[in-house]
């Protein structure tokens, strides 16, 4: 018998967290598999430094790297400020003030979410570029010497991204103002604050965790953005990754560039998760009662309406109108049977990814239900963090290991079957689907999990006592309760995948062009009119989840 304390082995740590070899079952295997999948791109990106590319980096350092860093920095500074100003002001007005059209604006201001940022980008360039619609018109009025700000600039990118992403901040801030704004404002007023003081001393600081959460989501989207910056020819890491892969054919270099993005994304992720935790406090009580709104003076009222209308027009109505104009002009010559293939691919990929994500999310939710130990909880939580990883990073991080796996498979096939194809996995949509799964699992998981939360253990117990169990329980209790969440998850993922650009662009098998890929190709040649046709399809599809959101908001 040894008296020396034995070190805890790895198995016993897992046991302490509630896992042991004997307790391994299908659910836990699945949780572990999904966790490994999400971890893979991170490991690949980190591991890429094992194959240093000194030549490439020297070249990068001399030319691109400083530009990339500064370009990214401007966006990371500018877009949050833009979305913050727009989102918070609009949320405050629609949540707490009374002015004409408030009810309509409060949902209509979510419409910009239906338009992918890269669509807004090319519409803006088409409208405001030197030879665009607006400057041409202005010059015809004020003379050819008129100098206008250049749209293809840092400012232009920031404006477009802000107009496209502000609804994230708007939605969260509005939620905060609605649940606690008015009561807190009244308390502040009874303590001698006027409206401005009340807003800055109470309402705004109270909503800070929500607003910060919205801004962090905006930052993640900004970092992940590929379509907008490439339309503007504004180099950031996402476009650099693309060029490294498809220009220099260096996957390792692409993976190493990805590491920058991963680092920033991880920082954002930590910040975002901690803000989420701070969002617990919500004083209960009566809120959002009609009639309890700040009454604005006459011209302030119209100013508020005018401001909301302006943002709505610039960020959604005007671009849609312009798209419609271009599309009708080019539809006759542009639209042909190729479109059926692109549309078909977009729909099929969306559908496949939606089903995959929903199935995995549902399985994870059930796994969490079966196993309430901390390790399972942590693994499931981690699996939902892929939304922070930019699509370009995922494309690289999934393609590299699968290509290696493919080579192994090809060797094996040649060895055992005497069959030597050029590619097995690389010719399928498997890579895309796995990358989509990682990126959009959180979207599906959130919708399904919040529905599952409503099936409290006592419901199962009650059903059992009433003589229902097994599949009948699933069919009569679980399915009806979860179905709403399932439908939401399917819709959200379906549309997100249709709009998704970098993963599709970089990992699609030959011949798998989609609407988003088509938009990328057409806009990189400056063919705004022709790009309007596929863009309108995407905007129409994008309206679906927005309608879901609006319905949920009005309830």
């Amino acid at each position: 018998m040894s008296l020396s304390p034995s070190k805890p082995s790895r198995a016993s740590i897992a046991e302490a967290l509630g896992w042991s070899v004997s307790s391994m079952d299908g659910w836990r295997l699945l949780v572990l598999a999904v966790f490994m999948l999400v971890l893979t791109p991170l490991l690949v990106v980190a591991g890429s430094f094992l194959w240093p590319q000194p030549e490439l980096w020297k070249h990068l350092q001399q030319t691109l790297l400083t530009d990339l860093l500064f370009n990214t920095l401007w966006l990371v500074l500018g877009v949050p400020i833009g979305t913050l100003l727009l989102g918070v002001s609009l949320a405050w007005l629609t949540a707490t003030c009374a002015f004409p059209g408030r009810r309509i604006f409060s949902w209509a201001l979510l419409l910009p979410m239906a338009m992918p940022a890269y669509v807004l980008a090319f519409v803006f360039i088409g409208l405001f570029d030197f030879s665009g619609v607006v400057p041409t018109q202005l010059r015809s009025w004020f003379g050819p010497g008129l100098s206008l700000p250049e749209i293809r600039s840092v400012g232009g990118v920031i404006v477009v991204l802000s107009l496209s992403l502000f609804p994230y901040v708007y939605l969260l801030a509005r939620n905060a103002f609605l649940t606690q704004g008015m009561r807190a404002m009244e308390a502040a007023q009874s303590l001698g604050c006027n409206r401005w003081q009340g807003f800055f001393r109470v309402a705004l600081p109270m909503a800070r965790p929500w607003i910060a959460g919205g801004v962090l989501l905006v930052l993640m989207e900004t970092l992940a953005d590929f379509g907008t910056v490439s339309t503007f020819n504004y180099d950031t890491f996402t476009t650099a990754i693309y060029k490294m892969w498809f220009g220099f054919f260096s996957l390792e270099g692409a993976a190493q560039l990805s590491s920058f993005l991963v680092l920033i994304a991880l920082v954002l992720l930590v910040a975002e998760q901690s803000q989420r935790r701070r969002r617990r406090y919500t004083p209960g009580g009566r809120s959002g009662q009609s009639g309890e709104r700040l009454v604005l003076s006459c011209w302030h009222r119209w100013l508020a309406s005018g401001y909301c209308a302006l943002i709505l027009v610039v960020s959604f109505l005007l671009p849609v109108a312009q798209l419609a104009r271009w599309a009708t002009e080019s539809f006759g010559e542009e639209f042909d049977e190729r479109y059926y293939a692109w549309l078909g691919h977009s729909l099929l990929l969306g559908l496949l990814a939606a089903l995959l994500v929903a199935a995995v999310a549902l399985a994870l939710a059930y796994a969490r239900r079966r196993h309430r130990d901390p390790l399972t909880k942590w693994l499931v939580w981690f699996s939902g963090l892929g939304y922070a990883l930019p699509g370009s990073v995922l494309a690289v991080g999934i393609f590299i290991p699968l290509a290696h796996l493919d080579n192994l498979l090809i060797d094996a096939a040649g060895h055992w079957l005497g069959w030597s194809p050029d590619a097995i996995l690389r010719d399928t949509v498997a890579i895309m689907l796995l990358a989509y799964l990682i990126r959009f699992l959180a979207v599906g998981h959130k919708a399904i999990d919040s529905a599952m939360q409503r099936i409290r253990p006592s419901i199962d117990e009650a059903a059992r006592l009433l003589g229902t169990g097994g599949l009948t329980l699933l069919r009569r209790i679980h399915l009806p309760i979860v179905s709403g969440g399932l439908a939401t998850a399917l819709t959200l993922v379906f549309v997100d995948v249709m709009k998704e650009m970098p993963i599709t662009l970089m990992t699609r098998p030959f011949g798998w062009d989609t609407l988003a890929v088509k938009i990328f190709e057409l806009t990189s040649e400056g063919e705004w009119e022709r790009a309007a046709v596929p863009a309108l399809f995407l905007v129409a599809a994008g309206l679906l989840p927005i309608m879901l959101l609006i319905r949920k908001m009005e309830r």
Partner: protein
Amino acid sequence: MTPILSLQDISQAYGRQRIVNQLSLELEDGQIGCLLGESGCGKTSVLRTIAGFEPLLEGEIRISGQLVSQPGRSLAADQRKVGMVFQDYALFPHLTIYDNVIFGCKGADKKRAAQQVNKLLDTVGLGNSQKKYPHELSGGQQQRVALARALAPQPKLLLLDEPFSNLDVTLRERLSLEVRDILKEQGTTALMVTHNQHEAFAMADLVGVMRSGEIQQWDTAYNLYHHPVNPYVADFVGEGVLLPGLVSANCRVETGLGLLDGLCCVEMTPGTAVNVLIRPEDIVYDPEYQPNVEVLRRHFRGPSTFYTLAMADGTQLQMLMPSTSNHLPGTRIGIRAQVQHLVLFPTQQPS
């Protein structure tokens, strides 16, 4: 002396629906008033109008003689020097207890404000929790913070909106007595609204029973209970039944329980058909008596037992007895009425 608060015939409406109708009341310096009524009777609207959160349809509101609300014009809430304790406390979750309480203190003298806040926090028994955040406190403690915060700027008038409704029953009465002591110690004039008569009686000097936007009676708790002005107040405050009877002479009524006499304030001509208010404590068990009622139900309340009785003609009575008594349902017992305050309401003539 000018009253601190004066409401003159105020009316309010949401859209077309009137929720407060021609309501008037006054509070002298240092008085604690209470509006008591069921939910939806308009009491909270009155409070919110006094605070300046809602407009007035008719009438006027004065605070220390200064006109603050009249139809179409109203002084901003932050200019009124009125403190408010909200039903949900509305503590600022992002500020510590200390920062919550000092929030409303204005003026250059920071040191004095800090002293004042420390004293107040000691008074409400939270001197040790200054650095904590609201969500770290229990409901009762949050309530006290809300009170301290409202008192800190030394308002002319304090409004309390259902201040104890989020607390459990045992805490409610204890805290309402405590709050009364604090307010009296500070000499604060206050108006509270509640639907709970025990809170109202524990807190207030003057209580107004409200029904559909009107005050039925604005009086001391004693008078509300013993001299209710109408059947609604009699029914709403306390327990009891209305027993039909006929006035035989001044302060004498013939009823199913025999001839009742007692103190009465209203003179009535003999022969008037009336309803007599019989409180449970007006019924006395008398073992000498011929059994004249049947015990229907018995409700053990600890110190006393509450009986529901049925007279021969089916009329029900209520009786309160020490809980050592033990009359089983179904048994017949002898009782008589011993009424001190004779409360009579003329029976409405069928028209």
